[in-house]
């Protein structure tokens, strides 16, 4: 159990390093006898918007947790901007799955967004004016400033997801991981999320989004990664999303004329 967290990051990013590099990553949970990930290797460059798709139990969430060092990696290496993520957690942020959050907890929207700044503070440090500014800007970007003093549990699913994204914006990471951010989200929020992600990646940050929604792939992502314990397909969304890969991943056949994005 680590005692220390956050504070200042003293390690600059390696020049020209990939935003994310996985080398032959395999992982197995202590409670199971089978690998959830088998020999996954991939490189994500700054500016990429990667959709991570695959059936339930494909290891999508595990992969995201491994990147952040939230799970102990069994085999292989993972580097974020040329170093293990745990060396500097400032550079990588996650929007976790909705179910891991205790929405009933009495806490305001503003307090939740401020959590994005804590990695820069660490123990015993109070937020400074710069942190309040970052929170204000993030609230503005996600269009939730007028909800800032509400209890998060009172908001709709879409509004809650905006709060979580505002928090990662306040975190100011260079690699953003979003685990199923589109579940229970209204269309306006979905558009706002994608618009924001596009703006972020235009600034040279990298984004990885795990999703079940195959329909949004071609429009909003530069790259798709089909995962089912190993990488089944990796490339532009149109290349990846073929009836064959879908059949292989989900175990059912589409009609030969069916294309998920134009039907």
């Amino acid at each position, binding site marked *: 159990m680590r005692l220390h967290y956050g504070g200042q990051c003293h390690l600059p990013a390696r020049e020209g390093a990939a935003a994310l590099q996985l080398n032959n990553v395999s992982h197995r949970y202590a409670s199971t006898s089978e690998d959830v990930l088998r020999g996954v290797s991939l490189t994500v460059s700054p500016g990429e918007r990667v959709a991570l798709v695959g059936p339930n139990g494909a290891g999508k969430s595990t992969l995201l947790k491994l990147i*952040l060092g939230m799970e102990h990696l069994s085999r292989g290496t993972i580097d974020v901007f040329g170093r293990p993520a*745990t060396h500097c957690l400032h550079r*990588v942020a*996650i929007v976790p799955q909705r179910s891991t959050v205790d929405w009933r*907890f*009495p806490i305001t929207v503003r307090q939740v967004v401020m959590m994005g700044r*804590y990695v820069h503070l660490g123990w015993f440090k109070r937020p400074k004016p710069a942190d309040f500014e970052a929170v204000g800007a993030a609230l503005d970007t996600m269009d939730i400033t007028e909800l800032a003093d509400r209890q998060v549990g009172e908001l709709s699913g879409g509004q809650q997801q905006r709060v979580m994204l505002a928090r990662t914006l306040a975190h100011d990471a260079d690699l953003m991981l979003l685990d199923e951010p589109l579940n229970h989200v209204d269309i306006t929020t979905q558009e706002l999320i994608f618009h924001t992600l596009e703006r972020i990646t235009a600034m040279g940050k990298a984004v990885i989004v795990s999703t079940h929604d195959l329909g949004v792939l071609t429009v909003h992502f530069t790259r798709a990664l089909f995962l089912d314990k190993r990488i089944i397909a990796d490339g532009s969304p149109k290349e990846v999303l073929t009836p064959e890969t879908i059949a292989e991943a989900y175990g059912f056949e589409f009609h030969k004329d069916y294309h998920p994005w134009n039907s």
Partner: protein
Amino acid sequence: MEFLIEPLRYSFMLRGLGGGLLTALACAALSAFVVWRGMSFMGDALAHSVLPGIVVAYMLGVSLFWGALGAAILVVIGIGLISRRGQLGEDAAIGVVFAGFFALGILMLSKVATFSDLSHILFGNILGVSSGDLVIMTVVVVIVLTGIILSYKEILTASFDPAHASAIGLSPGLVRYLILTMLALTTVVAIQTVGVVLVLALLVTPGAAASLVSRRLGRIIILSVIMSIVATIVGFYASYYADVASGPAIVLTLTVMFVLCGLYSLVRKVRQ
């Protein structure tokens, strides 16, 4: 005025009131976290399962505080070890340890002590607070209050979103042990004033009542503290003038406050 001052002429009454207020302060400050992190069963278990430690301290003739604290640490570690492997849920682990330790305590107590000792341990004896107890209580209150103030943002983060906490390198387990340590210290001193059985009420009722009135954590904590202090004073004078046990008097006052808060939130909802 005479009415209020009269009981305080006796130094043991004054110490009792001081002890009661210190206990109320520590319990109420933690109450919001106990309620919202779902730790009430843990608090109850801690209170009951320190009994063997109290008996051992009684037999050795040392302060009951150290015996209770030792047992509380064993209980927390025991529950952690059993539930760690994930085969059993934490509530089951708490249940097993709680019942086992409490039974052991009752058994030991029945061999060494009289019935009135038992009732003091079970229901507290606010008038038995010594000046040594007061010193320990003050230390515990200072530890708990500084603990909460210094780690407020960490407790908030780990409680609301443990995944985010571990993503920024803050171990939710560490925060949990921090709260458990404060909870164990508080429970141990609270036993002196309200007893094993009623500690739970001081840990849960103020936070629950305040949560009916406010949705802000900071306000919930402050409201809990105010209600607990008022309830302790009311209970204390009630026990002096009506000649009833102080522990139940304090707890019943808190329960009445809970009902009033419930009515208030009901009225507010209807009006909206």
